[in-house]
């Protein structure tokens, strides 16, 4: 197996290296990909048609919003897939595991966590909301928000975190996130334009059709953030307890 793997890997590597010889040099601004019409369109026109200076956010949430919708669905699938594979609803598989109480980390860790948790969460909200102008957006902010709950579970024990964010609630939040995203697209459909064509929403949002695109990006980013927050916490709580959700790390 090792020899076979080595041969396969070297064949693949040599094939890939043989192709790099007719690539443009690294960082060449005149390469086909960087100088192409699509890339130039994104760089030159993004701000004038969507009023969003961060091109990555604009391309992510508007031009290729259909991809991002499925990206959120992928996260959702991972969350419910982990539950489907691992979750043990019958209770514990070995009763002795449940005996010792789960009371998280020591006093110092708890105190530090309770100090920094609010700041993490505020920063996460800032990242979601400020994705139009700076790096960040729904996904990054959602991961950070979910991480704050993971930190809570690590410091105060999973049962404490579950009081705030029970399993049922995580599922509802995850569903709400996708519902916001897809529902926003369906709203465009109901108003008579294509799916995810935000420009038609200027009739219900303040500003012209370009501002409608900008505002809609914020809405779908919030949707992404909901799903990602819920699923990140659900992933951690299932994986750290082998699907029993009774006692954390």
């Amino acid at each position, binding site marked *: 197996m090792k020899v076979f793997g080595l041969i396969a890997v070297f064949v693949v590597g040599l*094939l*890939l290296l*043989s*192709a*790099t*010889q*007719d*690539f*443009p040099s690294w960082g060449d601004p005149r*390469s*086909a*990909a*960087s*100088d*192409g*019409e*699509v*890339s*130039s*369109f*994104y760089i030159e*026109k993004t701000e004038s048609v969507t009023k969003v200076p961060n091109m990555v956010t604009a391309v992510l949430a*508007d*031009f*290729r*919003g*259909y*991809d991002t919708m*499925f*990206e959120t*669905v*992928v996260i*959702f*699938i*991972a969350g*419910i*897939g*982990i*539950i*489907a*594979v691992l*979750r043990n*609803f*019958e209770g514990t598989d070995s009763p002795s595991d449940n005996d010792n109480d789960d009371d998280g980390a020591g006093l110092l860790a708890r105190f530090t966590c309770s100090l920094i948790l609010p700041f993490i969460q505020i920063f996460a909200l800032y990242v979601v909301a400020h994705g139009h102008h700076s790096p960040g957006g729904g996904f990054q902010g959602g991961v950070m928000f979910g991480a704050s709950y993971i930190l809570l579970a690590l410091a105060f024990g999973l049962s404490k975190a579950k009081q705030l964010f029970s399993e049922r609630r995580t*599922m*509802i939040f*995850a*569903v709400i996130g*996708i*519902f916001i995203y*897809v529902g926003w697209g*369906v709203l465009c*459909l109901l108003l008579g*334009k*294509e*799916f*995810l*064509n*935000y*420009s038609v929403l200027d009739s219900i949002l303040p500003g012209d059709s370009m501002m409608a695109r900008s505002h809609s990006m914020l809405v779908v980013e919030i949707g992404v953030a909901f799903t990602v927050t819920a699923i990140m916490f659900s992933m951690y709580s299932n994986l750290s307890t082998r699907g029993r959700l009774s006692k954390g790390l």
Partner: protein
Amino acid sequence: MTEHFPILILLVPLFGALIVVLLGRERPEQCWITSLISLGLSSIISLFTIIVVLSDKVQTIRYRMGGWEPESTVFEVGIELRVDILAALVVFAVTFVGFVNTIYSKTRAEAEAQGKVPFFYALIQLLIVGLCGIVMTNDAFNLYVLIEITSLTSYALIAMGNRRAALSSFNYVIMGTIGASFYLLGVGYLYIKTGTLNIDDIRMVLGNDKLWEHQSIIVAFIFIMLGVWTKMAFFPLHGWLPNAYAYAPSMTGTFMAPLMTKVMVYVMIRVMLWLFGDKFVYSDQHVWGELVIWMSVIAIVAGSLLALARTDIKKMLTYLIVAEVGYMVGGAWLGNVTGQAGAFYHILSDAAMTFCLFIAASIIVLRIGDSRVNAFDNLFRKMPLTMIGFTVGALSMIGLPPTCGFFSKWYLIRGGIEAGQWEYVCALIFSSLVNAVIFFRIFERAYFGNIAGVKEDFSPSDSDANPDTSIKEVPWSMLVPLYIASVSVLLLGIMNRPLFEWIQTALK
């Protein structure tokens, strides 16, 4: 309204999946009804899409997500859906099989999903969303995302089975990730040379700039093909498939076996003819044409022989799928329209007959409690209704008229003769003979029972003691899907001429 059909086909099961998750574990009955309604609605919409596409005015629906018309550029800046008759037919097959399979899941899901019924229905609906999206999208990167959606759902669905299912699911994760990543690499190589991701635009750039001879484009083609072949279990890369489909929960196996590999074959045809263009793929300068035909010959022969060697009926059927993938790859690579159309027609007919056989096999295994062929004594007397459905599927697999298996094989053979690839024609005929041996072995066992004097190391189970009371027919929720599948096998066979003409015109 009609122009929104492509996205509606996707959105209905997506919402269905969300609702099913919200309904929760306490209401399995309502989960079933929700997914039945959503998939039924989705298949009705896809049926209407076929009608719209076949009408005089519209031949190809193009749907631009977000309404991004290319104004200042020639290329698409957003993502585009593209539905022609080929896509519409495959989408209808996917949603319809999903709908029928949901009927079948009614009793099995509660028995096999271990209290996780809503997650099962949610995952299967998201799998259908992914498959339909793969078929309709016209964007190379979006195709990758959707391939990953189908992969992730199928990993989870397979791993819901017993412990061997979990192990085969893990192997599938490894193989599937390698396949999808190879596809992604190939798309990256195309992007670095062409600067666009839209499938039609890439083909245009490749043609206009004469990039065909570039090493990076050739490598991109090889990697995309390797990735797609891994996902469709083409012979040397088939390792993950038999265990995964055989050990998965039965209602998962009946859905994934007919569809997953077939949709990837569709992707392969689309990559060959639309992404790279036939001038590149069938060019005389590349050695691969002949090579792939020989690989498909090996796949057909090896798949058939491996199936012959198995006694477990589900394993046998999974190896037959490996052989059928060989048929379709060979047909698509023959380089003439007859072969391509034959391969495409075989996608539909193979989906129908595999679905039929898998349902029948699952019912039989469920009732007998043993998946070995040796246990099938006197099944025609014990379960006549099930065996009729099984017979239809088996005859189609062997290739007897008027089932669809005969016609698709006929078109493939005609394509092989046109292209002068005699080894491929011989492999097809050989495989039909092997299939005949395999299935008549089962028929003999099931009709006449164990012939006296033949000694076997088979220990009689309880079912032999009182054969007439213990084995009964299954409830209607399993028989109805079986009969729908067998009727569609016959219908596809009877309708072969118009179907084949539609496919041929779309490919030209």
